[in-house]
């Protein structure tokens, strides 16, 4: 069932028509609707959005940490369609130990964004070609953008000196 707040949105209608049940929730943000997608169906939804609806570019993928709330993480997908001059924001809610499929098979450009989300939040993207740290050194411990990671760092801190 399509949430009422996006019942008029053509993209949401198209997704719902193609894959009923993929949109689990939706909110109207200040810059347009945000669709919450079922994590299991993220790759088919993205594939459909790119090939059929025309969202050619992934502008960014990032995470939000809601600790200590559950489910802990939210993965945010920012999409751009040049053909229709539209933007779309999708979110996926993820539990602490849950993994999500990588969308690099859909957009090559998702590669670095998913690496960044993995590096800074510890969100694991399955089937990613090269899921390594991108910002932090390879031997870094912890994921800095998590809310339980102190801002001054839990290691190598000037406070220890």
């Amino acid at each position, binding site marked *: 069932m399509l949430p009422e707040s996006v019942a008029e949105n053509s993209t949401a209608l198209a997704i719902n028509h193609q894959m009923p049940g993929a949109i689990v929730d939706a909110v109207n943000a*200040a810059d347009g609707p945000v669709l919450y997608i079922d994590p299991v169906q993220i790759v088919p939804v993205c594939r459909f959005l790119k090939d059929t609806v025309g969202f*050619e*570019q992934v*502008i960014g993928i*990032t995470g*939000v940490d809601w600790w200590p709330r559950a489910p802990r993480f939210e993965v945010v997908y920012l999409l751009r369609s040049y053909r229709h001059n539209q933007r779309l924001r999708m979110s996926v809610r993820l539990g602490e130990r849950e993994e999500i499929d990588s969308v690099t098979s859909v957009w090559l450009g998702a*590669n670095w*964004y998913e690496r960044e989300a993995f590096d800074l939040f510890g969100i694991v993207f399955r089937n990613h070609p090269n899921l390594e740290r991108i910002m932090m050194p390879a031997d870094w411990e912890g994921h800095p953008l998590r809310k339980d*990671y102190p*801002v001054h760092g839990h290691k190598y801190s000037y406070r220890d000196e």
Partner: protein
Amino acid sequence: MKDREGYTHVASLDAEHELAVEDPSGLEYPKPATARRMILNMGPQHPSTHGVLRVVLELDGETILSARPEIGYLHTGIEKQCEHEKYQQVVPLTDRVDYLSNLNNNQAYALAVEKLLKLEIPAFAAWQRVMLCELQRISSHLVWLGTHALDIGAMSVYFYCFREREDILKLFEMYSGQRMMTSYIRPGGLALEPPRGWHKVTSRLVERLARGVDEYQNLLMTNPLWCQRTQGVGGLDLDTLVELGVTGPMLRAAGMKVDARKDQPYGAYPEFDFDIPTRTTNDVYGRFEVRMDEMRQSIKIVRQALEGMPSGPWQADAPNILLPDREKMKTQMEALIYHFKIVTEGYRVPEGSVYAVVESPRGELGYYIVSDGTAKPHRVFMRTPSFGNLQSLGAMLEGVLIADSIAAMGSMDFVLGDVDR
């Protein structure tokens, strides 16, 4: 010394395949005993990487077989820092992300917060923002032109470009007291009242810039060396560019007419008349031409702003968000209370999330802000154009010569602070 993928750092000789040395000049070189597949580490301190970017190149002679950009040397954790500052304290941090276009960063952040607060800003402030951001675009493109030309070997352009850029920075100093880290555009309007005489100084500056841009293009576009080094170099087909997340002048040089200022206008841009320059050559030279034309369009916008600048206040009427006038603080109790509350507690932003986009000199710059209803943002994600653009470097450098890689990298115009954040 080996890195974590087993690549040897300095140089390694690989005796697997024979290399034929063919020199077009007909001179005979002594043939090496073994052919070479070499791993070369370019950067992180290479002067042409403009910051600290490391590119691991796999070479066959001078031809690049594969290139792997390694980033993160300038990662400062600004996004983490933002979560621990009040909304008004984030503004100076946004300056430091892309230090060549700080006003654009200020504006993207301000637009995002204003959308969350549902705050309208006065026309004068919006027009001043447009004018300053366009001057910033010119100054950023001047730095790009100077350093890019220097990389390729044209020295004198660099001095001219930096001379004009310094004039723009002087204007910013006049406005905000700072040359580079201006923090001048803030949620709710501007940080300070524009200085007396800004109109006269800016008009004079714009006339000089208009002459300068033509001069610099003439210096380079008729130079056969420049053309040889840039034409037909660094291309990648349009679909791949789009899929890899490239935005801005690089897409426009590949023939795509995209610009956030026109596609999804923000601020006062709908009231301005300007074009989006495009080229179809999709090479380093095309990007050069696109950026030169963009500077001309920016000058056109600044001239329009100078002619039609509306009058009015330079800040929104929102005493609970903006710091009060110093004079009022000394005479009015309410102003003093608001000042105290803003400085100690900050202002609360309604719960929700927003993604606000501006067109920075490098491409699409967006701020994704999640608010949990407190005075500090829950999450600030900076969608920086350099990060997306740099991702195409590996695909772009496959099969080109090392010397061309310098030209290709220069044409991307990335700022490492913008990539690593």
